[in-house]
């Protein structure tokens, strides 16, 4: 998967779970500060990301993922193939 594809997929997930328009889910945005997404919503997003990208994001690693780009990087790094 390309970074663009991951970003687009993440945007869909965030829109469905948190109601934030996918177009607003851009790399530099902070989940908490810019997108108003709290830790519970992050858990749901992590679970949906696992379904979509096949990459598990455990709770203890999730807390270090502050921005959209952090998640994209994590998925890119841990994706298979």
């Amino acid at each position, binding site marked *: 998967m390309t970074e663009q594809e991951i970003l687009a997929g993440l945007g869909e997930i965030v829109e469905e779970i948190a109601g934030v328009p996918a177009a607003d889910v851009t790399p530099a945005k902070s989940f908490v500060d810019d997108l108003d997404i*709290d830790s*519970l919503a992050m*858990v749901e997003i*992590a*679970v949906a990301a696992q379904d979509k990208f096949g990459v598990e994001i455990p709770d203890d690693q999730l807390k270090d993922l502050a921005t959209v780009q952090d998640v994209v990087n994590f998925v890119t790094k841990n994706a298979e193939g």
Partner: protein
Amino acid sequence: MRAPETAAGARILSFGGYQPDNVVTNEDLATTIDTSDEWIRTRVGISSRRIAPATETVDDMAVQAGGKALAGSGLSPADIDLVIVATCSTEAPIPNSAASVAHRLGIVSPGAFDLNAACAGFCYGLGTASAAIRGGSARNVLVIGAEKMSAWVDWTDRSTCIIFADGAGAAVVAPADEPGIGPVVWGSAGDLAQRITIADRDSYLWQDGQAVFRWATTEIHPIAIEACERAGVAVEDLAAFIPHQANLRIIESIARKLGIPRERVADDIVHAGNTSSASIPLALARMAERGELESGSPVLLLGFGAGLCYAGQVVTVP
């Protein structure tokens, strides 16, 4: 040995619910702990909850709810031959709640036991009642979920004291010519047992909120699907979905995954709080009182929580 007298099915005759008069709002909590109405409403979905005074016990609340269910059932106390109290918060280990509650309700020498499956307790109790009736072990069963969670919560701990509350809900279950209570789908995740604990009689309720949230929003909706399949009821035909009132975010997440429209989903938690095993029957009793449940329609009950345990079944509205 002779075979027992079985019944073709079991059905719910009536509901009853009770919560203490004492209302504790989010603003009340914000005066003593570092929280706010907005934070509580967005994280948990609760606006206010009912908290019992020190003198009010689990048994007291169970008697209130049980009495109402009995009164609405058309049966007399003498007709009840089994009382099940689902609870995890009684003050004393013995005697159990069920025998005392039965006595106080004027029910004469029924089978009586308490059942601890925490927040899944009422669904476990209903499944057990249905099986007892169908298998010939009981005729008419009073199932009560009753909890005084406030007695086990650290009122300085904002991660728990904003959530839990007190109350009881009950149902009278009777034989029927066809099933009015679908097969229970129950299970547990003992590997996660330490995620929600009250360590001993001198300890407070503790939970790993994030881990529990993740479990509830990933592992529970498949149970709902299976419960519907086993009852032969399509998810889209459910008139209502009454999950354990753990947290509005969890409730909405599970409902979304099942594709159930929000207006069919019970959200009693908003003014009731999380009352563990009482939450499902309390929600049912209130929805019935408000005329929100259509007689004869199928609704899905789904409990999940400490254990970690879960159970769900489709039931027909009386």
